[in-house]
């Protein structure tokens, strides 16, 4: 019951944001110079062809009508059809999204697996050489541009050592095992940087938790260090942890654009770039819409988990 109410309020408060977000995309992409008709006509461009295509696309209708048509479709899961191909965009996204989602999931797993334990350990040994070393390394980790890291990983692990497939791996539907293997390097490229960030955040949250009065109470009671650290302090640090995870998800979507390009992965990141190049408004709109949905959904989950993790927030 409580969960339902919590989710309900969070969803309600996310709706205006979503509408605003779609409005921004809608206006923004209309401002992108370049005529979709040119892209569609391609090598067969003639003035007549272009005029015909423009008419077909209904690009002359009013923006308000176009927006309303689009948003009402989007809410029912119909993201329209691609200008470029005439295909259903929903289907297109459906094809491209899983790869990106799996990549993000892998990256998150890598990030958490690295960041969480190291962060906790650093906090436990706060102000020691170990802590310093770790935080400095984490700071350096954050500083590495992840697409550059991706290139380095390709050079070392794909080209020189051959441990992992290089870019342009198998498609997920066709050869899942190989495709997943192909996601290892990009996931590391994305996850290492995220892990460094998580490590820093977890550390500072844990340092703060560990210096609170209630930790002193726990110590006064005689609770073991392990229980104080891994149970009490960690649960109390879960809010900043949830926050940083949420931030990571939105960062990951952004970084995926560049990293997918480097690794030749056809997820929605590369779809966004292709669509922009093709002036395929419908697709751009849809990709950004989906990305915004993912981020908003993540925020929603974070929001709900706040309320569930911390009894003080209601």
């Amino acid at each position, binding site marked *: 019951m409580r969960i339902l109410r919590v989710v309900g309020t969070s969803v309600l408060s996310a709706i205006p944001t979503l509408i605003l977000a779609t409005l921004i995309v809608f206006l923004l992409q209309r401002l992108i110079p370049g005529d979709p008709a040119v892209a569609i006509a391609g090598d067969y461009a003639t003035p007549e062809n272009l005029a015909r295509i423009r008419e077909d696309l209904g690009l002359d209708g009013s923006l308000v009508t176009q927006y309303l048509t689009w948003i009402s479709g989007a809410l029912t899961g119909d993201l329209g059809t691609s200008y470029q191909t005439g295909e259903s965009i929903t289907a297109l996204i459906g094809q491209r999204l899983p790869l990106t989602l799996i990549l993000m999931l892998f990256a998150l797993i890598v990030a958490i697996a690295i960041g969480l334990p190291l962060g906790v350990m650093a906090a436990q040994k706060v102000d020691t050489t170990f802590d310093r070393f770790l935080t400095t390394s984490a700071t350096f980790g954050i500083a590495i541009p992840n697409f550059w890291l991706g290139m380095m990983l390709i050079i070392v692990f794909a080209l020189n050592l051959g441990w992992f497939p290089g870019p342009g791996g198998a498609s997920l539907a066709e050869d899942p095992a190989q495709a997943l293997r192909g996601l290892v390097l990009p996931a590391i490229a994305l996850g290492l940087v995220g892990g460094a960030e998580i490590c820093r955040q977890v550390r500072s949250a844990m340092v703060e938790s560990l210096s609170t009065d209630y930790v002193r*109470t726990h*110590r006064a*009671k005689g*609770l073991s260090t392990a229980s104080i650290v891994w149970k009490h302090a960690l*649960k*109390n640090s879960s809010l900043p942890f949830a926050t940083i995870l949420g931030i990571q998800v939105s960062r990951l979507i952004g970084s995926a654009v560049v990293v997918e390009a480097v690794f030749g992965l056809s997820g929605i990141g590369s779809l966004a770039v292709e669509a922009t190049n093709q002036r395929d408004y419908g697709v751009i709109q849809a990709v950004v819409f989906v990305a915004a949905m993912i981020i908003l959904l993540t925020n929603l989950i974070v929001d709900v988990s706040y309320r569930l993790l911390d*009894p003080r927030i209601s």
Partner: protein
Amino acid sequence: MTTVPVLNVQGLEVFFGHGEERVQALHDVSFTIERGEIVGLVGESGSGKTVTSLALMGLLDPRSSRIEGQAELDGTRLWDDANRRRPQAEVPMAMVFQEPMTALDPVFSVGYQLIETLRLRQGLSTARARAAALDLLDAVGISDPRARLRAYPHELSGGMRQRVMIAIALACAPQLLIADEPTTAVDVTIQAQLLELIKGIAADRGMSVLFVTHDLGVVAETCDRMITMYAGRIVERGPVGEVLAAPAHPYTSGLLAALPSPQHRDRRLATIPGRVPPPGERITGCVFAPRCQHRADICAEPVELGPFSAAREVRCVRAHEIHTTGADT
């Protein structure tokens, strides 16, 4: 007088920091607490009351502090020869802190925190710990304990939280309870309730209490004996009635005279000029001398805690002199 005191502190000294920055926060703190006795520890802010409590509880961070001296609880030493502390879970001592809001873990329910303690300190099964927890909440005067077990700290009022804190402390089955300003953050009417509660529990369980406060009124109403601290040192100790009726140390009497009271309106309040010297400040001789109105040349000499009367001791060379001339009040 042959009873073994529950707590016997001898020459407790605490240092903070390292090397150049090292400062001494406690100087030769020695005192005892008898079974069932409530001892008040008073002094201005920064005089070392909390440091004393934390040092005894073993809650000072070993990385930034260093403890010297010895303390025995119920005849067992708290530190071994290598200065290692006994495992906390074995020491029958518990503490109640000043801020009940922050001292309770905000994301675990009251029941969880209580039961966790009971299981750890008394080795109870979860079910029995639960029953014991209900009893404890009842004992500290919380109505509807069953419902309160599920409550989170933020859902409770300040007084209620402090009661929970006391319940958690009692779950440690302590011989000695250290209460560090347990009522400073609550209202007077609630304070009255809590003082009654602590006194009642101490009496019922034969538990001793080290009651830290800066409020002499509270000491007067709650404690059997009192210890006055100043700048990390004990400057006076003795039975509450005697001390408050006629303080031997100029600092204690200064504190008393500074208190406003409804009975003496319009009186100009006595003040103690200056402030408590921070630890680290080099002082030879009596630490209180710079603020003392009875300061004399002799006060430049170091002074030890010495007997004043049968039950009282004082760290002032001129104590008798001042006392007899009745220079104060």
